[in-house]
């Protein structure tokens, strides 16, 4: 049941106001990008984007389009603020994280503007909780400048095939090496850990492969510690698209279907590791 928040005293509508019948639609997506405490929220008429960055090398974005919300209104062209994502998640899940059938937490989110806190009204079973989370100056975000025209190699895989692989990555390896090629081994994930090296090969004709567009053989290494958080997004998703550009920048896009069957996206961008040495085969 939609909550109605009191209008701001000044009579102006909130810069951002949104209602969501099931807060889990938001919280699960935010968890998929929660590898740092702080996130930048960016809201437009199209919806909400939450960005998390680390080490100037990796960026994750969670997109919740306006259609997912029962109500979504943005007064200016865009609204941006920085917020503590850990706190936001704690609030969104304040009634607990277990999902009993039929019981959902309803959410209303309001933001008055620059300098004001983000207000959350959460209701479950008649109990209402009001949260006010302080907002901060938004950080400047990295622009990976990753557009489809610059993509060299692209693969779309069913997430099922990658989930176990990512969960079991040899974390004693510093890097995850990704090889994409029109020839064998087509798509290979490699780690070089204490026990030795491990290679995971996916053939292009595998049932898991939904699309395979590799034009050039590319081998790139990425810091495994940066990519490991993407496992959360992978676990939620049904499909993942893996793209690299000429500089070796990696784009991972996860298609996530929520409880109501609606589609949302999470993407991860990662810079290649600077010291590239010969891969051990």
């Amino acid at each position, binding site marked *: 049941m939609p909550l109605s928040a009191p209008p701001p005293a000044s009579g102006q509508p909130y810069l951002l106001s949104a209602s969501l019948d099931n807060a889990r639609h938001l919280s699960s997506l935010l968890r998929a990008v929660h590898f740092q405490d702080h996130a930048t929220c960016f809201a437009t008429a199209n919806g909400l984007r939450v960005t998390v960055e680390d080490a100037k090398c990796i960026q994750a974005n969670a997109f919740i389009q306006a259609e997912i919300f029962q109500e979504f209104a943005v007064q200016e062209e865009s609204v941006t603020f920085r917020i503590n994502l850990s706190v936001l998640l704690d609030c969104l899940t304040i009634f607990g994280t277990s999902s009993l059938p039929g019981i959902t937490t309803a959410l209303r989110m309001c933001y008055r503007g620059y300098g004001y806190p983000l207000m959350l009204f959460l209701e479950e079973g008649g109990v209402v909780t009001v949260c006010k989370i302080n907002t901060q100056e938004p950080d400047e975000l990295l622009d990976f400048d990753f557009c489809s025209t610059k993509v060299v190699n692209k693969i779309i895989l069913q997430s099922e*095939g990658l989930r*176990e*692989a990512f969960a*079991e990555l*040899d974390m004693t390896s510093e890097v995850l090496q990704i090889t994409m090629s029109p020839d064998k081994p087509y798509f290979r994930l490699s780690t070089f850990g*204490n*026990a*030795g*090296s*491990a*290679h*995971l*090969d*996916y*053939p292009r*004709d*595998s*049932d*898991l492969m939904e699309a395979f567009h590799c034009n050039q053989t590319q081998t790139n290494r990425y810091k495994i510690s940066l990519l490991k958080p993407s496992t959360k997004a992978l676990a939620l998703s049904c499909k993942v698209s893996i793209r690299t550009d000429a500089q070796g920048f990696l784009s991972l896009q996860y298609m996530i279907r929520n409880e109501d069957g609606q589609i949302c996206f999470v993407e991860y961008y990662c810079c290649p590791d600077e010291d590239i040495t010969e891969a*051990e085969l």
Partner: protein
Amino acid sequence: LSRIGDELYLEPTESGLSLRAVNSSRSAFASFLFAPFFFQRYEAGGPQADTELFRCKVLMKSFLGVFRSLPSLEKTVGKCLILLKPQASRLVVQLHCKYGVTKTHNLAFQECERLQAVFDTQHCASSLRAPARVLAEAVVHFPQTLAEVTLEAGPGGKISLRNYVEDEAERSKMMVTELCLAEDEFQTVAVAPGSCITFCLKEFRVSPCRGPPSQHQVTPQPLLNLLFVPQGLLAFAEASNLPLTIHYDVPGRPVIFTLDDAVLEVHLVLATLSDTESNLQPPTANGMSHLPAPSDDFADDLESYMIAMETSAYEEGSGVPPSPTFPLHTPRAAESDPEEEEEEEEEEDEGAVPGTPPHKKVWDGHRGAWGQGDGHSPLLTPHLSPQFRSLFFGSVLTPGGPGLAPTQEVLAEDSDGEY
């Protein structure tokens, strides 16, 4: 095997692939020999006919890491390929999985000496054979933290298991569990009456969960079971529906659990408590001529257990005859001390036998006797405390084989230069 040691010794032989492990105190040893038929394809040795068979050891952790998630492996892995590439210094394990996915693991290995434990089932005075289920069900009655268990062949064909209590004084304070099995529960019973042994149970627990039934196909399944079924040999045996045979002798001599079927031979060798209570008779003519008259508790200790791994059972011409040829060892007198506890548990040696008995004895090479670590004469120790004997492992070089010299691994301190 991972319950025993940190390193997995791999030795491909003509008669199959042998996987072995030993614990740090050298008091527990296990080997699994997979016959060539177990595999879809088995090639030992390089392309040249006379290439010496290579053996290596890998860190148990590394090897297990390849097979990390057992449940999903069963569903997704079709074929497992294991290659030893000495030139590249890599052991390659390649899993062919569902959807055409291939996982290749290149593990670093170390060259090593053959890991052999010296034991001989032929020379064991007693043996028992029972379906694993019988023994598993018996063991389950003992508390999880039990350290040592005593197996005894009592009068009337009764085989009993009870927890071992070190001190008489403790007996009155501790809960003593005793379980008796009738002779007819066993498939074979050939025991010396009154024989008993005690061995360490601590890490050999069988967890209540049963492993999946073995399929006896040539798939990675049984191999995975052996690596991962955390319950140990007993559960493995249960899962494979194989009977376990227990060979034992007198206290102090190791107890050997064996499991075999057409494609697999398993040996688990555990040290037993040498009983140091008063009525122990020193063995006659045990060849430890250098030893001064031992007091009772060291009688067994004085024997040198050069337990040569009984690869002779499955290795032709290994040069290690069934009868132990170690110079200091002669077959024990048939008289067994009534106190000797034979462990009848066919338990899987799941874990390391705790290495340090109360008075740690060190084999003193010079004196040819067990000595205290600090050099005091053991013979003067006033109070009798049972000691676990360490199985000595000989680093045995195959006669005629050049052996891998520089990395000679000293597996045991040995007074007699057994090579």
